[in-house]
């Protein structure tokens, strides 16, 4: 999978990294159990500090997306993610509230908003929209 980091973006680099690895897993570009580059190799390739990559990997590990082994290095989680249970749903809802709120503030059309969500969802599931 190709990871693309924008340096001029307002999104911090570790967040870009985290997001892209999750997106790679969603789209299937990163297979379950697939090895990821070591922290050092990824930091070197991006020409950035080790801590930045470490921060992304630590976050991904805490959220259960990746595993970090002493010998085998970082891996994409080999088994599927746990299903979207109540706890996940309530967390997702609280994360979406400010996003929806800003869209409402900017008077974005409800259908437009839902269309965008559907497009993004189907981008990952590869269904025709």
């Amino acid at each position: 999978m190709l990871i693309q980091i924008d340096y001029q973006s307002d999104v911090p680099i570790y967040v870009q990294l985290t997001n892209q690895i999750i997106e790679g897993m969603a789209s299937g570009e990163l297979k379950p159990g697939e090895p990821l580059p070591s922290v050092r190799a990824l930091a070197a390739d991006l020409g950035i500090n080790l801590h930045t990559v470490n921060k992304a990997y630590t976050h991904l590990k805490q959220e259960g997306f990746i595993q970090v082994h002493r010998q085998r290095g970082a891996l994409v989680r080999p088994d599927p993610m746990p299903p979207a249970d109540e706890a996940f749903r309530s967390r997702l809802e609280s994360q979406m509230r400010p996003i929806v709120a800003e869209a409402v503030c900017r008077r974005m059309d409800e259908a437009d908003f839902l269309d965008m969500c559907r497009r993004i969802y189907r981008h990952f599931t590869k269904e025709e929209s």
Partner: protein
Amino acid sequence: MNGIGFALLAIVTLPLGVIITCMPYLTRRTESFGVSIEEKYFDDPEISAMRRTYATVTGAVSLLVVIASLIAAARLDEEQLGWLLPAAVGVMLAVHLALYLRFHFRMRAMKKQRGLVSAGMQQTVVDTEFYREKRAYSMAWFIPHLLVAAATAWICIAYYDDFPDRIVMQYGMDGTPTNVVDKSPGIVLFPVWIQLLMIAIFTVVNYSISASKQQIDAANPRNSLRRNLIFRRKWSAFTLVTGFLLIVLFGSIPLQQLLGFDFNVQLAFILSIVIITLLWAVRLGFVTGQGGSRIRLPEEAPPAADGKVNRDDDKYWILGQFYFNPDDPALFLEKRFGIGWTLNFARPLAWIIFLAPILVVVLLVYLAERG
């Protein structure tokens, strides 16, 4: 002066002249005289003109130096000849450097004026599978090198008594011995020390080819990735094969001392290995270009259409030549002006790798002079 002296001068200075003259055409197209640019500016009239001027002047001066040194070689005495080759190479490199710096500063001024790398579109692309690809040939390919060195050592030790009492350490351009020392085990084994030093250097080079960080062109990620892998493998093969030839070359030295065969046979052997190595290097330089930028792929993936360009990392390149980035954990990376790899001088290990071979060579030469 004999033919071999002339041959050596020509063999070294001609390929060097060709390479330094063509250098700006062999770099990646996202770089001009050590300044990063967007690929679309590579063929900008002003930038093309700089390359042409650089190549014309460097080429003309190199040619003059080659001709002048060949004429000089015919007139100078033995004492002065020792300096001719280093002097000719020195002048060529000095001209190359002076012109590089001139155009480097012109490029910087031009970039200040015109931008040349759009600020909002910079991106670094990495492939998560890169380090699972075959980037260089296995270190096991150094086993033949080690076997030749072991055989050389064995010959030196087993036939120690048969070596002449005085060992020639250095020959003049005309084939007369210029430095002769008394026999000792250290002196007889001298070629073996050189072999081991060379194997150590080639091992580090092959490792650096494999470990050097991935540098993917953001405007054309898939193709540049494939080109880069071909580039690395070709130079790894070059390192392994020419390395082996050089180890064999040093292995022939004790044989010559032992069997006393004609010095000219030995020299012809040395020259042919030097010719093979240099011609191969020049050819590979033109085929691959830096990072594989000149390699034609049988089928090309379409370039990325998002208009992204490489990150502008000029601030980490001192004079466009020396990479110094304390934040970057990378040790090896591609050179910007030239073909091959360089070091991140912000890392202490880089200095050790850079200085160690020089120190060892100085030590060896010192020991050899002392006898």
